[in-house]
């Protein structure tokens, strides 16, 4: 089992962002669907070890990632917060993260795949939103992770780059947890988790059923 969440809850102030969510994931591609405020980003942060659960249990490769650096080493995460240092160049940012993860990935090859090799020596502060997303995606791939967490990674991207990323995701051998607003982007996934106000309302393999439940009452 790669991810196992049982009664997983995360509370901010008086409200629950994630409320008693259960699911298990093998080496598959999971799309997390939900409208704004459904808890998608919180779930990704919990699985990525950025946040700690308030109650319930979460196991990624058998351990809670928030307490295990060794597990976090096997996870790659990209979200709408690019987690990049604006005053450093793209190359310096990627080299820094590569050293933190203790890996020796060829940054140039990664940049070529995502079409930003000409901008490697540009400061992050000079990049457009679309380029930032590409670099954030490259950062997530730097440690060739067994589990890739992507939170709204395709928002603000050109169609061609979006297609390149989706193509890379379809071919990706590891496990992927992918959140998106664009339902058609999620179709390539093996299973679907629908969240509403932090609660799980669907978990299964039928895309149409997931979309139907998501749209119920909206």
């Amino acid at each position, binding site marked *: 089992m790669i991810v196992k969440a049982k009664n997983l809850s995360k509370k901010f102030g008086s409200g629950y962002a994630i409320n008693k969510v259960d699911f298990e994931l093998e080496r598959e591609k999971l799309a997390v669907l939900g409208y704004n405020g459904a808890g998608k980003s919180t779930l990704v942060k919990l699985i990525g070890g950025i946040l700690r659960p308030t109650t319930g249990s979460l196991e990624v490769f058998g351990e809670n990632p928030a307490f295990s650096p060794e597990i976090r080493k096997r996870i790659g995460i990209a979200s709408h917060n690019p*987690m990049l240092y604006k005053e450093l160049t793209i190359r310096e940012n990627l080299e820094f993260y590569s050293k933190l*993860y203790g890996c020796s990935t060829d940054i140039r090859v990664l940049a070529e795949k995502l079409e930003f090799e000409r901008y490697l020596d540009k400061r992050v502060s000079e990049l457009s939103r679309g380029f930032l997303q590409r670099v954030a995606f490259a950062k997530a791939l730097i440690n060739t992770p067994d589990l890739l967490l992507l939170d709204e990674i395709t928002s603000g991207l050109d169609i061609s780059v979006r297609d390149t990323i989706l193509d890379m995701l379809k071919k990706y051998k590891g496990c992927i947890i992918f959140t998106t607003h664009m339902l058609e982007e999620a179709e390539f996934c093996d299973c679907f988790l629908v969240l509403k106000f932090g609660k799980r309302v669907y978990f299964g393999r039928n895309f149409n059923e997931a979309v139907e439940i998501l749209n119920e009452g909206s």
Partner: protein
Amino acid sequence: MRVLELAKKDLKLEFRTKSSLSLMLLFSLTSAFLFSAAISDPEEIFSSLLLLIFLLTGILGYSTSFLKEFDSETIEGLKASPLTPQQIVAGKIVFNIILMFTVQSIIFPVCYALFDVSGNFGLSFIVFTACNASIAVAITALSPLLSQSRSREMLLPVVLFPIVFPLISSTVSLVNLALSGNIELSQILFVFAYTGIITSISMLTADKIL
């Protein structure tokens, strides 16, 4: 090694933007000039003035490396990486001690000259470095705790002063003794023990803070 990578990244950022360094240098130089002009015999209270300048400069400068990580949300990248919270705090401590040493290397001789101090420069510099490093550790350890507070700039000095209070009298008397070429072992040991305790507390609480 990851701790050093984090400190190296912060140094690269700092020497590129010079935001904390210029702020600290400007503040401490201005304070030194003001004190030298306003006080008739600053040599008498050299160690106290020095401590005051570096304490206030530290409050301005040392907390920024953590605050920047929180404000730009890059702290999430560090938390998602294989770095432990202790390594993150340790990386920031290493960076701030280097920053402190850079500022002190410039300001200490300036104050020494401006305040017209006569005494053992080398020994007083070394002794003050040990005390100043302790202050840097205390401020670094406190800053993530207060970073999410709305009135963090106001809270830091309020919380910091009682914590560094035991260090103040030791620093003043140690620097005064060092200027006359002497050193009191028990007080130097106290400074090292204080630094050790503050470092241990910051490591033990890092899990809860970050």
